[in-house]
Structure formats: structure tokens, C-alpha cells
């Protein structure tokens, strides 16, 4: 696996016709998207099929990618859409209004959490992620497991940056409520 080139440089080569270079993108992102899918959908089956569809869609639409932007949010956006569609097929939930995106929220800088706080949060997430609503699960997974900054999460979810901050705060509160009281 070539680690010297950036993702965007590799995509530029793919766009120029180097199909095999897509293998490097697969190497770099396959495990990440499978992990993202497992944690977002909170189930084991058919993640591989969905991730395969994500990469196929990414390749088909690779000419639409602007190489001056970061690849990661673009790819995760495709994955997000695919996972959301999978959730909708399973739950048959009616269309709902996302009130977080209707109005502006103050844009918080990414909070400087210590390594210990982050480790503790990941431990809590492993115990309680499946108890949360998908929109809270997803923002926690993107922030704590995929280690994305607010700006990138905003691009993936296509919401204003302030909405990411508020949703993350609410997600942490929901997680604390969902876990047994004696959890540290």
C-alpha cells in the first residue's frame, strides 16, 4: 500500500485513467467504512454488501470529486447515504423533519478532550451505542471512532457546523442516560 501519496493525489490519477489506483483507496478505506457501518447500523449482517455498493458508487462518480477538497468526507457522505437508506428499508420509519438543521446554532470549536476522556467515551460508546437513535449514533461514531473534526462531519451529514456541535452534545447526554447509573 502506497502511503506517500495523499488520497486526493490518488483520486487525480484515477480520474486521469489509472483504474488500478482505486485499489489504494480501497485499502485505505475499506476497514474504516465497514467499522462505520457496523457501529452506525448497530448490526452485523449485510455491511459488506453495502460497503461494496459504496465503493462502486464512489468509482462511478469519481469524476465529480473536486481534488482540492478532502476525499474522506466525500466518501463518508456516500456511505452515510447508503447506510441511511439501509436503515429506512429496515425500519420503514416515516419521513421526519430534522429540527437541528432548521435554525443556526453557535459554532463551537472542537472541544479539547484529554486522551483519557476520549478513551472513557469510547468505552461508554461500546456499551451504549446500540441504545441510541441513529442520528446520535452516527455523530458519535464519526467523532470518536473515525476521529473527524466538526467541519468534516458537517460535510458528511450536510448540515451546518453548529448543528454538529449541538447534536454531539445531545448525543453524549442521551448516551449517559441510556447507560446504567453505576457506569463511570
Amino acid at each position, binding site marked *: 500500500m502506497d502511503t506517500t501519496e495523499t488520497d486526493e493525489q490518488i483520486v487525480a490519477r484515477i480520474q486521469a485513467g489509472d483504474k488500478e489506483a482505486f485499489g489504494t483507496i*480501497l485499502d485505505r478505506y475499506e*476497514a474504516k467504512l465497514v467499522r462505520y457501518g457496523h457501529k452506525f447500523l448497530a448490526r452485523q449482517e449485510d455491511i459488506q454488501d453495502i460497503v461494496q455498493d459504496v465503493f462502486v458508487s464512489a468509482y*462511478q462518480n469519481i*469524476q465529480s470529486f473536486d481534488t482540492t477538497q478532502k476525499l474522506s468526507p466525500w466518501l463518508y457522505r456516500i456511505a452515510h447515504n447508503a447506510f441511511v437508506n439501509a436503515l429506512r428499508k429496515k425500519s420503514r420509519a416515516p419521513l421526519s423533519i430534522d429540527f437541528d438543521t432548521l435554525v443556526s446554532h453557535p459554532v463551537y470549536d472542537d472541544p479539547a478532550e484529554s486522551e483519557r476522556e476520549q478513551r472513557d467515551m469510547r468505552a461508554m460508546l461500546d456499551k451504549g451505542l446500540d441504545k441510541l437513535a441513529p442520528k446520535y449514533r452516527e455523530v458519535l461514531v464519526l467523532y470518536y471512532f473515525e476521529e473527524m473534526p466538526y467541519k468534516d462531519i458537517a460535510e458528511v451529514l450536510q448540515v451546518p457546523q453548529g448543528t454538529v456541535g449541538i447534536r454531539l452534545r445531545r448525543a453524549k447526554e442521551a448516551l449517559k442516560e441510556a447507560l446504567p447509573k453505576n457506569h463511570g
Partner: protein
Amino acid sequence: MDNLKEKILKEIRSGQVTMRPRAYFVLQVAALVLLGFVVLVVSVFIFNFIVFSIRINRVDTLLGFGPRGWGAFVRFFPWMWLIVDVTLVTLLEWLLRQFRFGNKIPVLYLLAGLLCMTVLTGAVVDRATPFNDSLREMHAGLPPPFGDLYGHARHHDIDDVLRGFGAPPGADDVYSATTTE
């Protein structure tokens, strides 16, 4: 996981999965921009027509006649056109969200901004230009639906209501009278 990689690369090499050409995305953006422009023009025109309709029918003067006047205002206000216009503005908002910059702005703010813009532009076109009055004068020669739209813009039943409230006659009012020597 190597199985997934090999499966995808095999499909790419065999041509089963191909890249969409760049021209496809350029055309997609161009189509969105064109559609957005058309929707914007139509929604500005409709709001301009709402303002024109209120003006020539003096619907706004009903508001000066207390609760009965307000009731009449609600009755004569062109609500259908307003609903159509708000629907178009909502469509325009959705179109703008297909672009990256559209997602940085909260939904309600973008919608409110677009509504303000179409309302203001529509009002300026009616009040500051002879656009509507000219079209009304030549409505017989206009193609459908504009001919019917401007031909039937004036509602004389509102005149009866206004006369009932004691409002002074407007420029277009017709009074029947008998001449005596």
C-alpha cells in the same frame, strides 16, 4: 476484506463498473442551475403578480375597515398564488442544497432569505416599473396563460365591497348614472 477489494477491482477491469464521464456532472450542474434560474424567475413573477393584483383590486385598503374589512381581505387575497409561490421557493431551496454552499446555511434561514428576496423583487417590479400595467393593457394580444391572467386580474366584486365600506372610488371603478339636462 481482500475479497471485497478484488471483487470491485475485477468489476472495474472487466468494464462492469465504469466511471461516469466528467461531462455528465458538468451537464448535471448546468441543468440544476438552469432549473434554479427558471424557478426563481417564475416565483418572482408570481409574487410580482400577487402585489399587482392587490394593488389594482385595492385589497390592501380593506385592512383599514376594521374586523369586517380584515375578513374581506382574507376572502379576496390571492391565496392560491401565494401557496404556489411558497412551493416554488421551497423547491428553489432544495435545489440550492444540492450545492455544497447550500448546506452551510440552516434550512429556515435559507427559506426565509429566498422568500424575502422574491417578495422584494416582485414588489419592486410592480411598483417601480410599468411591467404589469403594460401587460394588462395589451392582455388580448398575450399568449396563454398570460392573456387570461392579466385579462381577469381585475375583480369588480371587490368594488361592491369597498363601496359598502364607504371607500372612495378607484381609478378603474365604473359608476352607472343617468344624465339630466
